[in-house]
């Protein structure tokens, strides 16, 4: 019953969460202030925890165990969007990416809370609180720095301009789009994109930032079918270093 379509959906969700979780965890110990370091690291842990549950769902559908799937695939076998694999750069970029990605992520789970695939609907309800915090955190920072000083505003604006083509890549459609929608598993990437745009505009309009004109931006797609930037493989090498030395190691 729609197994291939479902797996495609689950892999892209799990891979997005694993990769953004790993990227954001790179800020641990380096955050701009102690409280933010704690909050950002904690949200990174949430993402990894959520990806683990989705990898377990895949395991139940006949895929390999979560650790094997997370640590032994090569970059071209990952289905995350390119936005999440980009290096952290400075904090303004990490914040804007967090804002653009988590707005989409929270809406995706909100849509999945009505999924006919029961494990997804249940997980969506369980992580609602975590997602509320992640978007609240992102929105509050963007509103704060997006209206603070000339430097903070121009930094966020530059990052927004750089991130936007990648952010549109979140909504790259799958070959199973019609099947997944008609089966009531997920209402589809186009619907998600429309909701996302509304939310993003709502926050940006409360700042001195300008949303880039989406009509003249070409979305950077490919991530969902294993085409990635040169930044993903080094991330995977680092993330799987311990596992590759000793697959039985516990840490």
């Amino acid at each position, binding site marked *: 019953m729609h197994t291939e379509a479902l797996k495609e959906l689950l892999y892209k969700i799990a891979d997005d969460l694993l990769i953004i979780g790993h990227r954001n965890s790179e800020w641990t110990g380096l955050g701009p202030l102690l409280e933010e370091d704690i909050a950002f690291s904690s949200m990174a842990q949430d993402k990894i925890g959520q990806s683990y*549950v989705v990898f377990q769902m895949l395991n139940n559908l006949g895929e390999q165990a979560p650790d094997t799937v997370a640590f032994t695939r090569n970059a071209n076998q990952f289905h995350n969007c390119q936005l999440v694999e980009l290096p952290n750069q400075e904090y303004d970029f990490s914040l804007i990416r967090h804002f653009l990605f988590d707005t989409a992520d929270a809406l995706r789970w909100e849509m999945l809370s009505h999924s006919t695939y029961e494990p997804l609907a249940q997980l969506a309800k369980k992580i609602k609180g975590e997602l509320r915090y992640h978007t609240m955190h992102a929105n509050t920072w963007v509103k704060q720095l997006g209206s603070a000083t000339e430097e903070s505003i121009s930094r966020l604006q530059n990052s927004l301009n750089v991130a936007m083509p990648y952010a549109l890549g979140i909504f790259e459609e799958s070959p199973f789009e019609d099947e997944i929608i008609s089966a009531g598993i997920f209402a589809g990437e186009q619907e998600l994109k429309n909701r996302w745009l509304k939310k993003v505009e709502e926050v940006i309009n409360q700042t001195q930032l300008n949303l880039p004109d989406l009509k003249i931006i070409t979305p950077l797609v490919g991530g969902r079918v294993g085409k990635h930037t040169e930044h993903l493989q080094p991330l995977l090498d680092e993330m799987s270093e311990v596992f590759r030395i000793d697959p039985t190691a516990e840490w």
Partner: protein
Amino acid sequence: MQLQLFSILKSLDPRITRLPQVGEVKPKQPLDQLGTFEVFVQAKEGKPFQHEGCVHAPTLEMAYVLAKETFTRRFTCTSIYVVDTRDVFVSPTTEGNQSAYELISSNFQTGSKETYEIYQLAKRGKQHVNVGSVEAGSPKEAMWLAKDLFGAGKMVYNIWAIKKNKIRYTTTEEKDLWNTLPEKKFRDASDYKGGDKLKEFLERQKI
């Protein structure tokens, strides 16, 4: 000796400057860096809010966001609230020989009535705990009124009064912030059993 003590109390270390000072009712002194905001946590429904510490933040709203993760990412929690440190009014502190309420004189200003939340320190080294609220025209009047309502027969070392409308509360809608994946043991350092693993590793090296 006196001079030495003075220089310690002027330390930038917040653990030292946070020590309450004996004197008149006055706003709590701000710390360094960004402004500070006091964080209060309710561990369970029906329990009183308790002061847990403070966060640095540019605004009250940012303080709320940072406080949530700084103070409640590990333990059960149903609600938090934050307030600008400068909005916390602090009574003189006693050494347990008399209640702090005895040091509040009836010589206070009054004005239009507002709601003040009242907090008591029941023991040195413990946290201030919310005991209820009063309608008063000034922080000192609030403490004066709290004496009969909340202070009777108790040894109270220190009293705080905070205007209710200065507090950033958790809304009913936001309460699901603490409705998260239950399995959070990976956040406790003890769950990694680092010592045990090191011991095992060293045992293996011997063989």
